[in-house]
């Protein structure tokens, strides 16, 4: 029982982690909580659905959905946030909430407000079958795929951030924007790149969740977004490894909370974690003390 909870919690945690890195990267470069990030996750699922219904094979549909979500993330920044870069931070924050509501409603207009199943015929039949069984623990193929994709994306993201020129520019920008622009770094272009990366990862999370639970709905980004945000805070907002760790910890905590305390409290775990972190360790598990930020 416990082992099975851990397996399921880990799966959920990787999903949160994939979403959380988007929050934390954007916060790192422009100190904005992008509340519309949950909607990018939702759009990932619906875009995949649409591409599949156009007759595209699953891998291509997923890839296109990620690219489209990345483009939407970039546009979101250019249209909604960039004009407010010099404005008080509250203005951008309220705009982010507005964009979240707007994108939810746009999705309702396009795809309807009722939950839709993930098109079964597009998935290989073995996905929902057990891949591994030890005594009373089962891991499905879908779970293995989530592990593999999530780990692959996170390793890839880390390589981009630590090894490439644009990744180094992202880190430089997060540390000192004036200095970064004095290096000749095109700040807006690097911010766009950050939105694109985070959105692609978030979209992939939405795609995999809609396959895993076999459902998607226009408001699915809200709760997932709040939880992933809690994960980012838990890990230390601004820290990419922190977001990954925070996601996994939160996913496991939530699943255990639902299993051992009471399942109606499951969604409360994220809020409780967030409140506890803010009270006792505002810099999160892997974050830096806030005072260090210039």
């Amino acid at each position, binding site marked *: 029982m416990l082992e099975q909870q851990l397996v399921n919690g880990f799966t959920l945690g990787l999903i949160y982690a994939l979403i959380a890195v988007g929050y934390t990267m954007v916060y790192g470069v422009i100190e904005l909580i992008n509340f519309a990030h949950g909607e990018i996750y939702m759009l990932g699922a619906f875009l995949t659905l649409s591409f599949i219904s156009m007759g595209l094979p699953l891998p291509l549909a997923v890839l296109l959905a990620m690219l489209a979500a990345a483009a939407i993330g970039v546009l979101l920044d250019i249209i909604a946030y960039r004009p407010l870069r010099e404005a008080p931070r509250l203005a951008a924050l309220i705009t982010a909430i507005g964009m979240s509501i707007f994108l939810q409603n746009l999705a309702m207009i396009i795809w309807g407000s009722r939950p839709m199943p993930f098109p079964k015929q597009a998935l290989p039949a073995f996905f929902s079958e057990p891949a591994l069984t030890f005594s009373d623990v089962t891991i499905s193929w879908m779970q293995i795929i989530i592990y593999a994709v999530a780990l692959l994306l996170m390793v890839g993201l880390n390589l981009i951030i630590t090894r490439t*020129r644009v990744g*180094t*520019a992202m*880190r*430089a920008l997060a*540390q*000192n924007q*004036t*200095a*970064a*622009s*004095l*290096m*000749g*770094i*095109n700040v807006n272009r690097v911010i766009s790149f950050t939105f694109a990366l985070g959105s692609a990862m978030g979209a992939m999370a939405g795609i995999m969740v809609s396959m895993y639970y076999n459902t998607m709905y226009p408001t699915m980004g809200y709760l997932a977004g709040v939880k992933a945000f809690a994960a980012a805070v838990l890990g230390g907002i601004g820290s990419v490894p922190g977001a990954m760790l925070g996601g996994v910890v939160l996913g496991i905590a939530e699943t255990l909370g639902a299993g051992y305390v009471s399942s109606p409290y499951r969604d409360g775990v994220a809020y409780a974690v967030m409140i506890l972190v803010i009270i006792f360790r505002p810099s999160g598990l892997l974050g830096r003390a806030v005072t*260090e930020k210039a």
Partner: protein
Amino acid sequence: MLELTAIETFYGNIQALKGVSLKVAQGEIVTLIGANGAGKSTTLMSISGVVHPRKGSIAFMGEDITASTTERIVSMGITQVPEGRMIFPRLTVRENLLMGAYLRKDKAGIREDEEHAYALFPVLRERRSQMGGTLSGGEQQMLAIGRALMARPKLLLLDEPSLGLAPLVVENIFEIIVQINKDGVTVMLVEQNAQMALQIAHRGYVLETGHVTLEGPGKELLSNPKVRSAYLGLD
């Protein structure tokens, strides 16, 4: 090489520069001295395109750069070592240097200039895998200068490189500035340490609350009675 014509720069409603004109010729060291809040940093930030003047114009090598982006200005050959150094604290020394070469594509040249920076500041070579934020103030200043040189600038803007450093380190930094200038880089030096700045500068300008009030050869300003009393603390 560089010409500012009556530039006026604002922060919101606050006017920091009230018509600053100055010239820098190829090969010179020109210094800009003045009290706190006179507008020295604002002048350099206007040149770098971080803030844009509302009036007046800035020309570099015959091109109007008043409204150009910092990216463009850096690619034309103007780099700045900002006040307070602004190194990237959580990038390694080497990554800091490479960020200085951000707009360059010539790998071999970049490698060469990295070596040159280590030759100029040997301590940076020892510290190259260390985080920038762990360096001492003097080392950070060296890193900031090394980083700016990585762009192979034609014109190097330095904002108070002596700030907060021990006299011996200041002397070392100034020697290196002279060396950089001898190697062919034109230098514009903002300083509170007027004594040292005027000693190495070919020409100097005195800035007071957004206006240029005095200009002339470095030696001449050193002996100017107003400069002596206001900026050198001599009678």
